[in-house]
């Protein structure tokens, strides 16, 4: 059926491979657990996905620009440790800007090495992943940091508060997604990122400042990490040195699930949101069903491949690759 649709060019929905996978998946899970689609649970999953989600928004832009960012995990550790540690030392109103600035500096280093020196982004951000993790450990002396007065600080609103009955992390995540979506689809900067990711040489020939655009994508990614760190620090009211360990891969998985091409030049913020939610719902759904944690990994394996496959198949108009 689907195959026939795909062949015929199909209605618009069949072209949204990820969306189809997402809907099928949500229906399956809701049949298997009656709690799954409850308002509480949906809110809870949205809230939980905000941290990964906010980071994924930034990484989506980096990837559309034709690069990768694997340093977001340890950068998150860095930012969270910093903001939590400074919270008690200089107060949240100073801690936040200081942390944001410091994180942007790390983003600027990435941007300089990749955008201006044109070094390979996979390896540079891998190196940064390691180096930043070391920096965090040196800064904190390997100790965890905690906010002592957890109830009396306004810092709590970012992770624990709510506005109009909706948890703040959700508002931040979805709000930011909307802003980025608008930037990427309707503003010159978004167009330039797409162009640079799609064909850097042609972009230069069109007078686009490639270095500056790439540099900016890394600054945006770092900014997203800083925002995620505020949510995280406020939600947990403390931080381990390696809170962000392995987050880079979850973030990347979400971006990929959203159908953003790793080759650069195409991708969509809103579909990244879908990818983030899908991963979060998998984790949540399987625990709701009482499955052991590793089934989550197995299911994620299958879902990633099937979803991206559907997406790729819809784009090329046939299910199997024509390669012999």
């Amino acid at each position, binding site marked *: 059926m689907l195959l026939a649709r795909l062949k015929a060019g199909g209605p618009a929905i069949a072209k949204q491979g990820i969306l189809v996978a997402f809907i099928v998946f949500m229906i399956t899970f809701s049949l298997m657990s009656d709690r799954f689609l409850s308002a509480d649970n949906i809110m809870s999953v949205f809230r939980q996905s905000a941290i990964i989600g906010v980071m994924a928004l930034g990484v989506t832009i980096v990837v559309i620009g034709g690069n990768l960012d694997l340093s977001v995990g340890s950068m998150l550790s860095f930012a969270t440790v910093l903001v939590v540690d400074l919270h008690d030392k200089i107060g949240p109103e100073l801690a936040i800007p200081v942390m944001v600035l410091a994180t942007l500096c790390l983003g600027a280093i990435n941007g300089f090495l990749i955008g201006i020196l044109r070094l390979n982004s996979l390896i540079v951000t891998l190196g940064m992943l390691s180096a930043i*993790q070391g920096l965090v450990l040196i800064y904190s002396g390997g100790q965890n940091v*905690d906010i002592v007065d957890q109830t009396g600080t306004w810092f709590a609103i970012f992770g624990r508060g709510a506005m109009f009955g909706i948890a703040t992390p959700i508002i931040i995540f979805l709000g930011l997604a909307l802003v980025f979506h608008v930037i990427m689809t309707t503003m010159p900067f978004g167009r330039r990122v797409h162009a640079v990711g799609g064909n850097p040489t042609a972009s230069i020939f069109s007078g686009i400042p490639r270095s500056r655009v790439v540099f900016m994508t890394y600054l945006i990614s770092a900014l997203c990490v800083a925002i995620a760190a505020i949510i995280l620090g406020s*939600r947990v009211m403390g931080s381990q040195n390696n809170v962000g360990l392995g987050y880079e891969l979850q973030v990347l998985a979400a971006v990929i699930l959203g159908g953003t091409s790793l080759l650069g030049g195409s991708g969509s913020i809103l579909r990244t949101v879908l990818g983030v939610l899908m991963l979060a719902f998998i984790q949540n759904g399987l625990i709701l069903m009482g499955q052991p944690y590793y089934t989550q990994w197995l299911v994620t394996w299958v879902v990633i491949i099937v979803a991206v496959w559907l997406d790729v198949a819809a784009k090329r108009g046939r299910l199997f690759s024509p390669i012999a």
Partner: protein
Amino acid sequence: GTLALASAATADTVRIGITQNNVGIDSYQTTYERAFIEAAEANPNVDVIVLDAGGDVARQISQMQDLIQQNVDAIIIWPTDGQALVPAVRNAHREGIPVIVTNSNIAEAGMEFIAAFSGPNNIQQGIYSAEMMCEALDGEGQIVQITGMPGYTTAIERQQGFDDRLAELCPGVTQLDIQPGDWNRERAQRTMETFLTRFDQIDGVYSGDDNMGVGALNAAIAAGRAEGMVFIGATNFAVGYDAMARGEYWGSVYQSPVDDARAALQTALDVLAGEDVPKLNYFDTPKITQENMHEFDRPVF
């Protein structure tokens, strides 16, 4: 500094190499490392080489080789994995270098090759937690468990001690589910949130350490269901201690990394001095609850 120290080594200075599991993954290990170095510096006759395996078994094996290569007098190892280090330990044993295992023990097969073990008894800690849970719930109730990073010895042993003892001591307490929190507070918080959605009635939560326990507590407070819920952890962290002081956290197991580190060094020195050291040197890790917490210092980590 290495060169100077090494050349200053005289006949009565001993060189001890330590390879740690994963410094920096949590404050416990960091504090341990610092305490160990302080203790060694306090003793003019000890020269230490401190290495970290970063949680990677293979790297720890290479570090064992590197230490054997340097011909140290004794090796202290905090195994990343109890079983996988057996041949490496055996190798050191063959080379005539005594091995002292610290914090979490080596597998049964390796016992004959080590000089001594020094550290807490993780299974016993699980047992303590089960006993506290039983007591707090009066033998009746439904609980969930949040474990450490899957596949690591400490996580496995604590869970094992807890599960076995709980089943034996109070069959009236049922475990609804067990999921990992990866030693990560945010992750534990997420896991707990899902538990709260899934189960209408949760009477108690056992977490593999207090860091995760506080994450679970945060989730319960946010859901407005913390009242009357029993939180029990292990490895008393400062956050756990504070939560206990506020009356939100029921109990934990007190384990001092400083004691741990000092005990390991002392055991190694005793072995080198030729004293008769018992194979298993557990240092005490008592239960800590809201009632007796004033007897303990607030943990530094």
